[in-house]
């Protein structure tokens, strides 16, 4: 019974981290540490972006969990699981409480969508300035970036294929920026688009892919790198569609 519970807690912790966009080496490390703290010395774990394998000892049977839907990034959940794992290793949490706390973390949400859209708009405006734009580019980049991000979030609810949502986000950015520029709102179309596209850029995937590759997790690194490449291509194609009509 005890063993089943340890497995449950480890799997849940691993699942939350993986779904929230953690590096796979961190997922495996956390699961092993939790298991060791509860007395399972020889726990084996293997995580890829799409599945987790975990067995509590070599002769015991393996638990397998498939991960179908990955969110882009929920760094606060990774931090929360991390601090729970620290408490477990320090001996401050027993199995039952650890399971309950992890269940709470799974439901948690850090920021509402409207705040994220505002943040995306501010990010877009700032990047237009940082990449060498003038202040006239700030407002149009802000609006285009906010609309594009909102479009992507909206499409994500209807579509199961994330790349199509990202394509749509890029498409909205292309249309709105060329619309603004045709009225003389904004100084340079390139700067407005570059700024507006930045919130969609798969920055987390790129850094994670690199870190996983360096940590020797070749499968995870390559699959995340491919996902990043596909995302970048989807956004680029979305924006580029508008140049086809000009």
């Amino acid at each position: 019974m005890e063993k089943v519970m340890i497995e449950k807690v480890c799997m849940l912790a691993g699942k939350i981290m993986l779904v929230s966009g953690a590096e796979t080496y961190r997922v495996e490390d956390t699961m092993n540490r939790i298991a060791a703290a509860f007395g399972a010395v020889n726990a084996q774990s293997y995580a890829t972006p799409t599945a987790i394998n975990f067995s509590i000892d070599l002769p015991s049977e393996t638990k397998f969990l498939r991960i179908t839907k990955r969110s882009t990034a929920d760094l606060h959940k990774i931090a929360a699981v991390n601090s729970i794992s620290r408490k477990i290793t320090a001996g401050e949490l027993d199995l039952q409480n650890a399971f309950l706390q992890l269940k709470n973390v799974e439901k948690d949400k850090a920021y509402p969508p409207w705040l994220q859209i505002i943040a995306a708009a501010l990010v877009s405006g700032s990047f237009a300035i940082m990449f060498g734009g003038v202040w006239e580019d700030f407002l149009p980049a802000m609006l285009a970036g906010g609309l594009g991000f909102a479009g992507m979030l909206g499409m994500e609810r209807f579509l199961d294929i994330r790349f199509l949502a990202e394509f749509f986000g890029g498409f909205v950015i292309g249309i709105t920026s060329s619309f603004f520029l045709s009225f003389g709102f904004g100084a340079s179309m390139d700067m407005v688009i570059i700024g507006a596209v930045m919130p969609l850029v798969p920055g987390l995937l790129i850094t994670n892919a690199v870190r996983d590759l360096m940590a020797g997790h070749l499968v995870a690194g390559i699959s995340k790198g491919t996902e990043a490449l596909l995302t970048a291509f989807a956004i680029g194609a979305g924006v580029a569609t508008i140049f086809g009509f000009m």
Partner: protein
Amino acid sequence: MIIIAQLVTSFVASAGFGILFNVPRSALVQSGLVGMFGWILYYVLVDAGMDVVPATVFGAMLVSVLSYTSAKIYKKPIIVYTVSGIIPLVPGGIAYNAMHQFVENNYDVAVQLSAQVMLLAGGIAIGLMFSEVVNQIIRRMFMRR
């Protein structure tokens, strides 16, 4: 004056990205500052005439060192700080330009720009590994004694 504008915008950009990536509220300001310092180092170096690739490596190194120290101080996983901190250095502008040239059939320019994007991504990777490598070397040296 330009530097102040760059400082403010890079802080807003990094902290805003923190919100997009659901960074814990208590870490938002730090991740914004990490991104700001990394970008300013890059900006100053490029302004002084350095090539963009080494400048990106140095910027990423600063980001990784700052992230590592904040991760140690605030006891949070390092990924919370690096992800939004590294964002300003990601070559989004050049990648976009490369895409634009591809669409307009200027393949020679497009391939040149894509190669530069690959180099910059590699530079970011090297810079990000920096603090980890230094940390491992220090730890091994202490272990031996």
